[in-house]
Structure formats: C-alpha cells, structure tokens
C-alpha cells in the first residue's frame, strides 16, 4: 500500500503524504542502484507482470530493472491487440494473467481508464505505466523526485510545462503532483494543444514561451508527436520549433540561472529541444531516466507488500 492506495493509477487520487512516501523511499532505492551489487532481496518470491498494449521500450525496461533489482520475478506480456481490435477483451486478458498469481500488474494502454478497469476486475495491485492521455503516475513521481533532488524542495518553486498538453499523460500527472508538493505550474503551448478547462486544475496557461519559462525553476519540454501535425494542431514542426522549442539562445536569455530542463523522452532533437539544450548543463534528462528506476522500485516495493521501514533497514 502507498498510504491508502492499493494501486498506483492516478496521482489525482494521491495525497501529498502518499506522494512523499514514494519519493522518500525512492531516495533509499537510488542508493541501492549505486552499489556495486545492484540487487536486494526485498521482493524475492514476488512477481511483477508488465502488460503492455502500447509499444514502449524505456518504461517497460525501467519497470523490469526495478523489479529485478528488488529480486522480484518479472514477466513481460506485450499485446499489439486490444479489445478495440476485437481480440480478447482487456478484462479477460487481465483475469488470465491474474490466474497466474502475480503480485503487481503493470499496465500500459492507449485507452484512458484502462488500468482502472483492470483494477476493478483483479485482486492484485495495479500500476499504470501510462493510459491514453490520462496519467502516467510513475513519470509524474520521477519528475517530482528529479526536481526535488536538484532543488532540495518543491515548496514555492515554479514549474513550466511546454508542449502538447492535450495529448500528454505526463503533463496531467505532473499537474496533479507538483502543486500538492507546493509548486506552481505554468502551462505553455499553442492554444490547439491546451485541453479545455485545464486551468481548473490549478495552473496558469500561456501561449508565449518567454512568459512561461522566465523565472521558472524547472521546465518540462513535452515531446511533439509527428502525427499531431496533420490533426491539424500545428502547421508544421518548423513553426512549432521557432515559437515553442527551446534552443541555446532562448535558454540563455530567458531561463534563470540554475533552472532545470526536463523531458520525458524520447526527444525530437531540433523540434522541442535543440541538441545544445538537451545535452547542456541545465538538462537533467538522463537523471530522470535513472530516477525512474528508483521511483518504480519504491512503487513496486510498497504495492507488492513491503513496508517502508524494512526497506530502509
């Protein structure tokens, strides 16, 4: 359990204390990853199933490494089909997997709400590895972890999220998590990429990149997916990059010293981020990847039946 949460599906449902419980435990988990022997027996005899209905290499690998570092057995089940394509229904797939008695089911799906549907029909813990444009809670937690690690606290900090918020589950999880830890959030992007009523989630919405990033302590640049261009949300990547992409000149002129640049990956170099910024001193993109493993270890540990005190011992 994470606080009162049996599952990790939506940070909207998480309290500040529940978020902090994961982040604090992830600090110890990160220490494990720095040891020469990167393995602890905490989840020996437990099993984690990765059930992925959408192609994903990095998130699935991150969960797999997290599970294996904790000595859990890990099975990857990848399915190109879903009930949308008239194969086995999602509930049937989940029940079949549950019959193999896993302790945690990690699910990624293109439909928002799919992990909730699975959780309603299985007895084990369910972790969302991203569902549609709903949430990507482990990414939201690792973003919080990364910024907190670098800045010491999120209290009073300002975060800017730039890009296609309408299609971004990462942005939604960040939007729910950061304010609970005391940070303010600014969203920025073309109006076609700002979802309806998003300001009701407690953020400010900007179209001007400079207004959004000036004075911000951290900037999360979202990936622009090429299929959005014909939607038509933007005319082309050239104009997007000019207006909403972050390059070395804009970063130097507008970002305050010490401001962090994050990206959930994979990067479109030259679109939302220029290579100089992606590889520059402000970038914490590779920290995010490493912290992702630590945060996922914490999530799996807590939901597979471990308790925080034992892990630290």
């Amino acid at each position, binding site marked *: 359990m994470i606080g009162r949460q049996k599952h990790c599906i939506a940070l909207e449902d998480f309290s500040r204390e529940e978020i902090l419980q994961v982040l604090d435990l992830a600090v110890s988990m990160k220490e494990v990853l720095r040891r020469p022997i990167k393995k602890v027996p905490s989840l020996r005899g437990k099993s984690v199933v990765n059930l992925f209905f959408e192609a994903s290499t990095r998130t699935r690998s991150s969960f797999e490494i997290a599970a294996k570092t904790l000595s859990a057995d890990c099975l990857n089940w990848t399915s190109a089909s879903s*009930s949308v394509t008239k194969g086995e229904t999602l*509930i049937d797939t989940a029940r079949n997997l549950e019959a193999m008695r896993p302790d945690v089911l990690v699910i990624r799906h293109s*439909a928002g709400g799919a992990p909730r549907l699975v959780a*309603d029909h299985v007895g084990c813990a369910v972790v969302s590895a991203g569902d*549609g*444009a709903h949430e990507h809670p482990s990414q939201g937690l690792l973003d919080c972890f990364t910024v907190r690690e670098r800045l010491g606290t999120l209290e009073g900090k300002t975060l800017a999220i730039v890009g296609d918020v309408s299609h971004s589950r990462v942005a*939604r999880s960040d939007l729910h998590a950061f304010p609970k830890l005391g940070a303010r959030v600014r969203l920025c992007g073309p109006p076609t990429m700002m979802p*309806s009523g*998003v300001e009701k989630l407690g953020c400010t919405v900007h179209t001007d990149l400079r207004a959004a990033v000036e004075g911000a302590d951290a900037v999360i640049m979202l990936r622009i997916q090429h299929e959005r261009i014909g939607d038509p949300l933007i005319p082309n990547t050239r104009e997007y990059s000019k207006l909403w992409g972050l390059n070395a000149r804009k970063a130097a002129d507008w970002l305050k010293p010490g401001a962090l640049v994050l990206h959930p990956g994979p990067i479109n170099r030259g679109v939302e981020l220029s290579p100089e910024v992606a590889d520059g001193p402000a970038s914490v993109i590779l920290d995010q990847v490493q912290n992702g493993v630590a945060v996922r270890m914490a999530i799996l540990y807590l939901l597979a039946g471990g308790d925080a005190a034992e892990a630290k011992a």
Partner: protein
Amino acid sequence: MSDVTIIEGGRVIDPASGTDGVRAVVLKDGLVADVAERVERPSGARVVDARGRWVTPGFIDLHVHLREPGQEYKETVASGARAAVAGGFTAVVCMPNTKPVNDTLAVTELILARAAAAGLARVYPCGCISRGQAGEDLAEFGELRAGGCVAVSDDGKPVMSPALMRRALEYARAFSLPVAVHEEDLHLVGQGVMHEGAASTRLGLKGIPGQAEEVMVLRDIALAELTGGRLHLQHVSAAGSVRAVREAKRRGLQVTAEVTPHHLTLTDEDVAASGYSTGLKMSPPLRSAEDVRACVEGLADGTIDCIATDHAPHSSVEKDVEFDAALNGVTGLETAFPVCLALVRRGALGERRLVEALSAAPARAFSLPGGTLARGAPADVAILDPAAEWTFDAAATHSRSSNSPWKGRRLTGRCTHTFVGGRLVHQAGGEAR
C-alpha cells in the same frame, strides 16, 4: 358484453384536455369512454383503485432502439415493448438502425408483425432518411410511409451532407413525415468519446464540444426554413442548440425537439466521478451543468417539446470494455418517469408539463394518436405512484440489457399499471392478467 375498466380515485392529469383533478376514467372497447367525477359502475366492469396516484395518458417515446432485426441479444421488439409498458409508455417509435436497417418495406413489416404478436406497447417504426443509412441517396419515403413508418431518421449517424438533408426535408413534405436528426458534425466530433471540458481533460479522454451539435442544429434550422419541411431534433444536449430552437420557434418554423432523461439530470462530471463507467457513455455525451440547466429550462418553457429516452440496449460484450471502445447508449424506458420526476420535486419542472412532455407533446410532434384522455381517444393509460420508492434492479429489468446509469439506484416514482387499448398490459409487482 363489452370490456369495461374503471380507474377510480386517482388524480387525472391530462394536459391536452386541461384536466387536472380527481376523476374516474372509464375505458370501453379500446377507447376512453368517459372522464368524470362520478361514473356508473356497470356489473362486470374491472375497477382499479388509483387513490394517491396519477392517472395520465400513456407515455409516448419518440426515440427507442429495439434492435430487431439483427441484434436480438440486446433487445427484441417484444422485450423492448415489455420494458416500455413497465415504464408507463404505451407507444414507442423505434429507430431504423437495425441490421439490416429499416429502409425497406420488408423490415418495417417485420417490426410491425413482431409488435402485433407481442401485443404490448404500440410500436411505430421510423424509416431511414438515406438508403442503407449511408448518407448518399434518399430511402423510399413513400413506401415506408405506406408501410407504417411515422418518421424518417438516420439516427446514430448525422446527415453530414447538407444537400441530402435539404432534399430529405423537401421530399418528406409529400408524405407529411417529420425528418428526425441526430445532430453532430462528425468533423468536430473527431475521435471524441465524452463532452469536452474540465472533466474530459482530467480523464484524458477526447472531448466533443457542444458546438458539434449546435452547428448542425443551426444548419438544419436554416434548411427547414428553405424547404418548409418538418424538422425534429433528436436528443438535444447543448445550451446552444436550445437557444437555436427557441429562436426558430419564435420565427414560426416547423421545428420540434426532444431531450432525454439523462441529458436532463447527469453531467460530464458524473462521468469523471464514476471512474470511466461506460454506463455513462452515450451519443451525444453527457454535457456540462450549464448545458443541463439550459435543457431543463428549454423543456420547462416548451422550447424542447418532449422527453424521449433514446433507449439504447447494449450487452456486457459492448459495455464491459475500455471507455474508448464501449458502444454509445443507455437504456431508459423503465426509469424515465422517476428520473424526470426528480426535476419536479426540485421545482425545475411542473407536474403537468412533465406529463405533457411524455404524452401530448410527442403525439403532436409526430402526429400520432393518443397522448390524451379525451373522450374517444385510444384507451392508453398509465397509472403512476409518484411516491413509490424502489430500486432499479438490473436483474429484474424487462429489457434484455441493463446498461443503465441508474442500475442499482433508489428511485422515487413508479408506474403501477399500464393499459394499451383498454387492456391491462403491465402491473407493478406482478404480471398483467
């Protein structure tokens, strides 16, 4: 000896004849024979005690899906008609999106034959606007009308071509057929699965703005003016649509509109609170609180003529899936009265207006018999207990499907008896004799 039923002691609410008070209603030979404070009791007459209840014209639903032919696992004409009378509906208009669609006389005749065999609610088929509901060529309105269709519609599919819509409204004039339309601009709908707003943003589901409906409503009002055709707007859900209809009526155009019980009482925030419940997925989607207010006001002031359920049965195969993948629609025949009665209790709608919107108004919109208890009218009557509390138990539903937002919910208000043509076809808590 003729078959006589006397319904005594109930409050007769018959907006069409202006009656509202305790009266006895005499049903004889399939017709309303008398409505009076005192009536004679001929020997052998069946006497129904309706004290404490409402006695109203049988309800008329201009919008149901009976799924036969083709999808009998969801509903049949007989099971749908059974659900109808359980909810106080004595007549229903069934949409043509069956498999095959009702664009030919053979399908119309099959539906009417099944309805006659069931002998429950009156079933009026609605034919297609376009052949195969393909949105390209007109269906044979003349033959469909002659066979018994009372309206034409491509329900479920908006008529995207303004040229086809224009011709449909014009051609239907030859047969006095209302052209009933599902108003959504599919380009604006896109891949949307719920109302666009803060709730869809939180859920990460693709949204459909109310304007997807409003732009089509505005287009078709303009075409109704051009053609002089009878336009009926199905399941109006957006505030902008209500404004457009109000203006069209002010200008004297032949436009009627319906609204569903769910669009009068539920919002997109209910979808969010339900945790992606597909029991709240339908087309058009549940909209904002502001849209709901506009629909209730529009119904109360007569801008929206009537309440129609859009009873849309689906099995668990279509509903126990991801929200994106679930089919649109909810059942509604058995819950419409109590759900709408809640609007009366909170003062948003008058009792007489509620009864009118379920009886006289839909009869007028589609020129159907009934909808009144005037002497000589068909003996189609509902007896309703406005205080009865009950649980809508999905297992006990008369429909073959239970995809209802009110599944398992406590409801207040229930139909206790339903008469069609003077025959008792439903009695709550027991099968009709």
